[in-house]
């Protein structure tokens, strides 16, 4: 369905429609998703020239005459980028084209140095794939991949003088061409049906799954906050699963998992409101606003888009040999889903524990901690317990706390050796977090005199004092109430500032009182 010209009144009416409540919306309508993910490849150089592919360099320093599109320049395909694209295609269970061409997508914009983007149009390098997406409760949703194709990124415009940083109201704009020509792979799904009320969660989980695959393949840093991974989210509603697809909207450049979830949720509610009011959803691109959790229409194009695609005459077709493709297939690393299944077996985590670990982004950290010698359950306990609490308090991800897996493994080692107990362990961690990750646990224990007291003479003195101070408790114990021993241990631990080896203290008390545990 294409957008028809509508009257101003009609537009106002459309914009004024109240969104439906989410639960009502998904009861009345069947949402269908379609997701386009762009990933910036972590190659050393750009897609079509030798300029370095770097983030956050001084503006307009990571450029050559080719990335500036100066007259006379020609593109040359970066073979590493082709390799990365094929690896992504293979990881997404795609077919790999035997031969594919680039095309020119033509439109005028200052961030586009040639006023066309060299992209793939009707001949993508990878096509017809799928990927299984695991939701938080363990449900698996299979998402079909239509295609994955290679293209180049554009430069970056900065609008100066306006209040919002957007072009509206700006007095002038500056362009940084460092990003111009950075290699991208765009992955396009087929329509994702039958997701119902889980649509927001599926969208976010799908992008997270891709992000994890990019990292496992080591083809990109895949940092959402840097825009390494960007998602365009298409949402449409239909009456039920048998009805034809409804008119979709495309919300551009949604850049965090939470934002994806919210954007889908908002669009479902908004479109349901429009449909309930008896109006048609307008096919358009929209923008998501983090502050409000809402989407708004993008710039209305006065003329229809016509990109005048045609095959890029400056490049010969990319024709990856079957031998090369098979070699890449055989050297694919273990992908995240397979790895999770393997680790559940090796570590003895329950499915529930593993999902928690993954949702907390702790899998790699625990893996590293285990690799450094810690027992898996101990590593899980520290990362998912004390450290997760610190991360939550500080509002950062676990891997941004500054605490390393090596430090945690060392800490667990000290506990295993009974040099410290859990309580001291928590103190030591506190010191490290406070110092933004500085310090070795053993050193901190030594410097602060935190080692467990296991010197019997010290402990015996403390036990004697506790026995002398608590005759009534002693009577109870002697009378058979062994569990009352705790009331004696408290004063001992207090006297030793918590550093006593609790097991040893208990043993000494029982010896002194002549009772058996």
């Amino acid at each position, binding site marked *: 369905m294409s957008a028809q010209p509508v009257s101003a009144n009609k537009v106002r009416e459309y914009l004024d429609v109240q969104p439906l409540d989410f639960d009502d919306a998904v009861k009345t309508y069947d949402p269908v998703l379609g997701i386009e993910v762009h990933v910036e490849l972590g190659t050393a150089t750009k897609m079509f020239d030798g300029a370095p592919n770097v983030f956050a360099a001084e503006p307009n320093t990571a450029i050559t*005459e080719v990335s*500036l*599109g*100066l*007259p*006379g*320049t*020609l*593109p*040359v*395909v970066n073979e590493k980028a082709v390799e990365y694209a094929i690896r992504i295609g293979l990881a997404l269970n795609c077919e790999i084209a035997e031969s594919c061409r680039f095309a*020119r997508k*033509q439109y*005028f*914009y*200052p961030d586009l*140095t*040639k*006023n*066309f983007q060299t992209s793939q149009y009707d001949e993508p390098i990878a096509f017809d794939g799928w990927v299984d997406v695991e939701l938080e409760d363990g449900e698996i949703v299979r998402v079909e991949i239509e295609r994955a194709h290679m293209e180049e990124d554009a430069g970056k415009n900065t609008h100066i003088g306006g209040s919002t940083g957007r072009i509206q109201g700006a007095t002038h*704009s500056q*362009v940084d061409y460092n990003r111009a020509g950075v290699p991208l792979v765009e992955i396009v799904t087929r329509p994702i049906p039958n997701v119902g009320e889980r649509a927001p969660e599926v969208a976010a989980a799908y992008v997270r799954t891709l992000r994890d695959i990019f990292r496992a393949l080591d083809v990109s840093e895949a940092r959402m906050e840097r825009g390494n991974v960007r998602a365009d989210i298409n949402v449409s509603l239909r009456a039920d699963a048998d009805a034809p697809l409804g008119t979709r909207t495309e919300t551009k450049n949604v850049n965090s998992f939470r934002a994806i979830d919210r954007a889908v949720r908002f669009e479902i509610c908004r479109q349901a409101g429009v449909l309930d009011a008896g109006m048609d959803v307008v096919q358009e691109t929209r923008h998501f606003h983090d502050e409000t959790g809402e989407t708004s229409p993008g710039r209305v194009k006065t003329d229809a888009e*016509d990109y*005048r*695609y*045609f095959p890029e*005459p*400056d*490049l*010969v077709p990319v024709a990856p040999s079957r031998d090369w493709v098979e070699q890449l297939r055989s050297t694919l690393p273990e992908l995240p889903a397979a790895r999770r299944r393997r680790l559940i077996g090796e570590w003895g985590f329950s499915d529930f524990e593993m999902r928690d670990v993954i949702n907390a982004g702790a899998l790699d950290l625990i893996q590293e901690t285990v690799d450094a010698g810690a027992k898996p359950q101990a590593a899980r306990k520290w990362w998912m317990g004390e450290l997760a609490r610190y991360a939550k308090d500080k509002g950062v991800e676990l891997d941004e706390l500054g605490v390393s897996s090596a430090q945690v493994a060392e800490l667990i080692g000290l506990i295993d050796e009974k040099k410290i107990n859990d309580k001291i362990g928590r103190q030591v961690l506190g010191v490290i977090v406070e110092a933004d990750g500085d310090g070795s646990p053993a050193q901190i224990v030594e410097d602060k005199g935190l080692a467990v007291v296991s010197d019997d003479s010290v402990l015996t003195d403390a036990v004697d004092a506790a026995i002398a101070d608590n005759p009534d408790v002693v009577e109870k114990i002697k009378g058979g109430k062994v569990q009352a021993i705790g009331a004696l241990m408290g004063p001992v631990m207090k006297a030793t500032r918590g550093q006593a080896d609790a097991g040893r203290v208990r043993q000494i008390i029982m010896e002194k009182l002549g009772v058996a545990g």
Partner: protein
Amino acid sequence: MTDLIRKSAAEMAAGLAAGEFSARELTDAHLERIEAVDSDLNAFITVTADDARATADAVDSARAAGKQLAPLAGVPVAVKDIAVTRGVQTTAGSTMLEGWVPPYDATLVTHLKQARLPILGKTNMDEFAMGSSTETSAYGITRNPWNLDRIPGGSGGGSSAAVAGFEAPLAIGTDTGGSIRQPASVTGTVGVKPTYGSVSRYGLIAMASSLDQAGPCTRTVEDAALLHDVIGGYDPKDSTSIRDGFGDFVAAARSKDVKGLRVGVIEQLEHDDFDPLVRARFEESLALLEEAGAEIVRVSCPNFEYALGAYYLIMPSEASSNLAKFDGMRFGLRVIPEDNPTAERVMAATRGEGFGAEVKRRILLGTYALSSGYYDAYYGSAQKVRTLVQRDFAAAYEKVDVLASPTAPTVAFPLGQKVDNPMTMYLNDIATIPANLAGVPGMSLPSGLAEDGLPAGIQFLAPALGDDRLYRVGGALEALLEHKWGGPILAQAPALEGGAR
């Protein structure tokens, strides 16, 4: 005029090697000639006298020091202003690039510098190589040394006029639909369009990427072979560059042997569109080759009939895209409109003012041909014709070693005659376009004087990578014709006395 500048480049190279004169003397002689006659010809947009002299001095020093030098070291060359030159204004004949100084060299310019050919300057051309008469340049028209009221051909009229007018022994041209061969034909010089992909396009301001190819403009076939050797070869910066080896061009040019060579005459290019004397000179050339032992065969290339139409869809389509980058944002001209100068309006104003009429015409044609709903009918169909033309060539080369036709339908026409009538102008390229569509090499050399006592050209075409066959047949025919004429055809050209106009 000194005798020095009338030598062939091969003779100049031999004289330099023998110490008969210095590279500096040779370069100065050409710079003096430019000084004397270029106000008449306007073959050059930019003359780089200091750079040329510096290169010549370096060659002389190196030779004095006994260093090994490339065969053409010290022999001056002129470069069409479509090839970018670091530190030297490069305009492509357009207002759009007036004053633009590129930060890099085209690969072929790098080759010229490495072989130490003093570069005399940048030659005039139709704007962005769009034209057959060098009348669409923003830097004035170039005149034909044979008759200053006639066109020098185009788009590379500057390079051919410079060579014909003895301002340079060697020049670089580019040929998208005949822009090397047609100017050669109407100026009595030699021009070669090499196999597509054999000379790097890196640094050549693109008109139509799948058709453009740079090549030599010279006075003799041997000189063309020598220059081709300098500029050709694989370039990793050009994805369409060919890795395969080539034959020995210079040896082929010197062999003067056509015994057993099968020369195919393209029936479709024998019709009445070609002027009678142009055709007569062509037939006489074939007769000479036949006497020398070549076999003349008639071949049919039925799809050549559609080549011109296909070309005028493919070329403007690619050009409309290649010229999109000229928007006033990053380099060259920027026109800022009075009110509300948004980026979009600056782009529109810049392109409106910076491009000439012929360039705009082709951008409009190409934009239309690529637009949604028309692509299949226009660009798509044209690509199919291209495949058919390639099949015609393949079938013909089953029977013959080279193909032949007159290069252009007429001798040089008067300035102003066709510039306002694009259709008649486009017909100039009817014989040269098929080679570009198929990517095969072609050469034009003088066949004799035709209408109005002006030179006509004969064109030979060879299969892809068969450039050496052109040098073989061209070198042999040149020798036969010069024997008949009693010397080079340019000896019959009127002397340019300088300041005549």
